[in-house]
Structure formats: C-alpha cells, structure tokens
C-alpha cells in the first residue's frame, strides 16, 4: 500500500543535519506536491563516537542517505537497487501518485572495519557493496 505521509511533505531544505552537506540531487523536481527522495552525504566518525580505542581503522566512513518520500522503503533482505526499481516501476504506472526514485546506486563499494574483540583478537570485517559511490538518479 502507498504511504501518504503528510508530515514529511512539509520538510524544508534546512532540515538537513549538520555537518552533512546537501547532495547533488537536491533540486529533484517535486512530484504532485510531494518531495521526491533526495540524496545527502553523511560522515560517521568513529572518533566522535568514542570508539577509537577499539575500532583500529578506518577513522570513519561516509555514505549517502535518502531523505524524502520513499513509498517502498528498505526492508528485510531488500537492497537499495531493488527498492529503487520497484518505486520506479510504480512511478511509471502512476506518475502522479508515486515520485520517481532517486536513490538507485549504480556503483557500490566495499568497506572494511578493523576492530578488537573481547579476547584481544583483531578482526577485519569486509562488507561488500556497502557504500554508494555513484548514484544513478
């Protein structure tokens, strides 16, 4: 079912959290008076979180996140590409009701985290297809 979230419709650009800057696609046209999803960049700093003593590397990582009306948000086992595809298909069928998805990643990059566990062992965890580097909005 489609969600019609009236609260999010009132969002303005200045709702962006500091220090994350607006994304490249912030000028996405409004569909039927609703804000289509927009891409923003967020930097997660392990130092700011106070995790520097057990997360050896990296110091932090940046990632994109969407802000806007996503009618088919990410759920269990659904990745961003599938989510965007579904929303795009529904947008083509009902262009006035469902905004065009703008968060289809075209290139996903891996991220690795190096950290200590309870036994002083060191673990390198690699996440494939984790960070969206290029957006195909």
């Amino acid at each position, binding site marked *: 079912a489609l969600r019609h979230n009236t609260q999010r419709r009132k969002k303005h650009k200045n709702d962006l959290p500091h220090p994350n*800057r607006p994304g490249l696609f912030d000028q996405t046209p409004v569909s039927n008076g609703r804000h289509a999803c927009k891409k923003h960049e967020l930097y997660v700093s392990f130092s700011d979180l106070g995790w520097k003593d057990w997360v050896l590397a990296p110091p932090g990582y940046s990632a994109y996140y969407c802000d806007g009306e996503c009618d088919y948000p990410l759920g269990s086992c659904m990745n961003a590409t599938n989510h965007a595809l579904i929303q795009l298909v529904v947008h083509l069928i009902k262009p006035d009701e469902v905004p065009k998805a703008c968060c289809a990643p075209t290139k996903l990059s891996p991220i*690795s985290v190096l950290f200590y566990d309870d036994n002083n062992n060191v673990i390198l965890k*690699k996440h494939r297809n984790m960070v969206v580097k290029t957006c195909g909005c």
Partner: protein
Amino acid sequence: GQMEGMVHSSFRRLSGREKKEMQKEILSILGLPGRPRPHPPLRPPSSAPLFMLDLYHAVSAEGDEGLSVGFIPESVSHAALPTLSTHTPPLGTVVSEADTVMSFVNLVEHERDLLQPRPYWKEFRFDLTPLPQGETVTAAEFRIYKSLTVGQKANRTLHISVYEIQREKRHREPELVLLDMQSVPAGQEGWLAFDVTSASNHWLLQPRSNLGIRLYVEMEDDRSLSAGWVGLVGRRGPRSKQPFMVTFFRASQAPCRPPR
C-alpha cells in the same frame, strides 16, 4: 554560505537515548559487536594488530582502486609477506575473497625442557571459539618470526615442521599430524607462515579437540634444535614479533539484514 547557515540553525543536540539508538544502528549496519570487554587478566599483546593493519590497508586499496588483487601488494610486506617462506599458499586470492579475517592471540606456549631427551619441541594454542556465524574457513596460517641469533652458521638449512596435536596420552607422546613444513636458511630473519587450514577446520567442527600445534626444528643431519636457539620468537619476545594465527572466512550466503 547561506545554505550552510540554514543547516547550522537546524542542527539540534541528540538526547542520550537517541545517541544510543544511533550508535546501535551504526553497530548493526557494520556488524560490530560493540565495545569489547576484555576478560581479566589481560592477555599479552601480540604482533597481530600490525599484520591486520597491513592487511586492512591492502584490502582498502583494492576497494578504492577497484582492482582485482591476485597477490598481496608490496605495501603489506612488512608483516603479511613472509620473507623466508618458500611455499606459502597464494594468499592474495584468499584475502580478496574473504569476508572476515580474524587473528588469534597465542594463549599457551609449552616447551620441551632442555634437560629432557630430544627431540625439542614447542607448543602453541589458540582459542577459535568466537567465530563469525554463517561463515566458513577458507585458509588459516600460523605465523612466527625468526630472528637472527649469534653463532648461527648462515649457510645451514633449518627444517621447521608444524604438527596438529590430535590426541594426548598420559606419559606418552601425543598423536601428531603434519600440517606444514618449511626449509629456511639459518642466517635469515623474517616471518614464517605455516598452513594450518586443516587443523582449524578440525577445531571448528570439534572445539574440544583443539589441543594446539607443535613445532619442531631440525638440521640437515636430523639433529633436533630448540626453537629459541634458532631465533624463533615466542611469547617472551618483542611485541611486534609475537607468534599468532590468522584465519580467513567467507560467508556461506549473502547476509540478510534484520528489519529495523
């Protein structure tokens, strides 16, 4: 600038609960267990963090450049590439394909008393129980540093063999299974890497069967030597040269994110 001002004005401080939730979310996304609580007494430090940091840089460079690394880059030669190794497995592919790499601190180090009859040996043990779920071992290495010792004849060859201790018997020698063997010049120093994949698989299936590994050193004439005499660094050695074990895991299937 105007935009930045607007952004600043909208920034608000998160409440304690929101902060905790945000941190929980980041931990969940990255699959991190949270701040470790080391079991007292603290285990002795090891050289594994240096090796793992080198490995991390190699993996990150691979990701950034989008290159398919078929070998461990030169940048990791400090700790990852054994300078003495004669037949280490091609770890490059293993590293590229690994989803998780874990280093294990050496917990136990037994040595044959020099007053006892030969052959000399040294035993090491690693606790492999905190393993990543849904992942299988693709490779495992035991890494030990060989330093230079005074009085060694550089042209002599040392045969170093590593065995899995399969069954201990009272007052008798335990059952041993050969895991790996290397022949190295006595006059060289550097890291030695022994393939212990089969032992780690065995320990994962039956954790109670983990009795550790045993190392022997012999000369060309089959004369047994103490590991310390030939410069193999143990727990009493410098921090950056402590022996450790590294295991490479690969996820059995694509991880499924829990709904949030």
